[in-house]
């Protein structure tokens, strides 16, 4: 799980082209949007697309579930792990 979280940090920084953000700056428990890392709705879309491509998985969730899965890096890692297992 820790490897996955580290991978996701790299993915977020690279895909979303975040300047002056290092992996150490991203707290896995902190919100990705708003007050935390400050990502926006376009970042959310880019991230969703990048994850499906990188991990060869098809994501499927309701709006309520998506909000939970994309809340933090830790949640996202859990979501991806569950999709990979199924």
């Amino acid at each position: 799980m820790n490897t996955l979280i580290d991978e996701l940090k790299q993915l977020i920084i690279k895909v979303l082209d975040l300047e002056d953000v290092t992996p150490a700056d991203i707290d896995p428990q902190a919100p990705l949007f708003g007050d935390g890392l400050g990502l926006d709705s376009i970042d959310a879309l880019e991230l969703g697309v990048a994850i499906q491509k990188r991990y060869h998985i098809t994501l499927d969730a309701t709006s309520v579930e998506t909000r939970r899965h994309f809340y933090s890096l830790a949640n996202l890692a859990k979501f991806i792990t569950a999709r990979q297992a199924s």
Partner: protein
Amino acid sequence: MSAADQIGVFSGHRSQHSATQHKVVAYTGDGELLAGDFYARVAGIARHLRQRPEQRWALVCDDTFWFAVGFLALVQARKTLIFPQASGPANVAEAQAAAVLTDQPTRFSSFVSLDVAAITASGTPVGTDLDDELLIELYTSGSTGRPKRVDKLLGQLRAEVAALEVQWGQTLGDAVVLATVPHHHLYGLLFRVLWPLWAGRSFYAPTCAQAFEFNAAARRFGRCLMVSSPAFLTRVTDFGSLQPQDAFRAVFSSGAPLPETTAAKIANESGHAAIEVYGSTETGGIAWRKWEPEVGQTPWQSFAGVEIAAPENTPGFLRVRSPWTWRADWVETGDLGQALPQRRFLLCGRADSVLKVEDKRVSLAEMEQRLVAHEFVSEACLLILKGKRSSVGAVAVLSPAGRRQLQQVGAQKVRKLLMEMLRAWYEPVLVPRKWRFVEELPGNAMGKIEMARLQALFTERG
């Protein structure tokens, strides 16, 4: 029986029939809200509002269901409705609202406010006769340093959704309205809230953030339509994987023209061409088009009742007069257009300095003023950065206080602080993502800022 007769909470029809009380107005994440409950809540809040002395009310709700309830309650209570530029307290203060109707009472604790969700529904609905002369104020980015106020009458909004229903009602039938755009800008207000309310269609209250959410919604509802924008649609990788495919009756797109490749992709993979709508806060809906193969640039077809004025042989200023522009006067769109026969026309780019970032209007002059107002900034110049996504880039000269702060805490923290300040005013997509702190703005001998050198500050670092 038309859809409008079945419910018509925004059509002015009295809908006391028992069957209509059980019709679904909105679907939430996991439940549904019936017309009977909806009416009762609207009536309860309207009654409450009538006893309040404040006339000018800002409506700021994060949840689309509460937004719809709040809208109708304010309308029934004959209050002036205000839609600030964004959803923060700073925006509400700037729009000079006397009070706020909201589902986020803690965010507006320093205002006179009313919690839309806290009022217990009471008694039977009062009359649904609506005052078409009621004033609605919308705030949007202009080309100056101040947000631009656009006035509408309630009757104009009603006329516009009625026209949409004439145009597409039959195609859409009882499809559930799914949306990726916010409800507080005119496009979302009309397409995801007022049109469904008027026509008796159900809307899905959550905003879809990912394309894959459509599949779960389509399985749940069986038939649906999308209210979306190029920023979203250009990032959907595979329209063919939307399942079940026959559940999607239409995809609407507005905010900017869809790139040709995206329009073709949607048509080829989903089997339906997206319906693009051209309009603005000032003008309302002007025209629509559906991508056609091998046409080159597909012309726009103006809506019935909308008059267009543009040169025929060469691109020129495009002007519009429609029943839903203020006083039905001619309005400059700020776009260049070329008129074609049969009330069709081509769009040929922008004529004024209003800019868009991912379909959202932004005034850089206004944002620069807000930055310079901060104690850490003495000069600022903003620009649009193009790339995989468009975004705002900020070049700033720090004040002595700002420079001291920079030395103490570092550039990352200063940047974060300024971003947080701007986030209070703007939607997240518009907040600058890249920052350059410089000793002085790059100017020429005439003192004019050189945009090419500003751009270079961002490309040099890659």
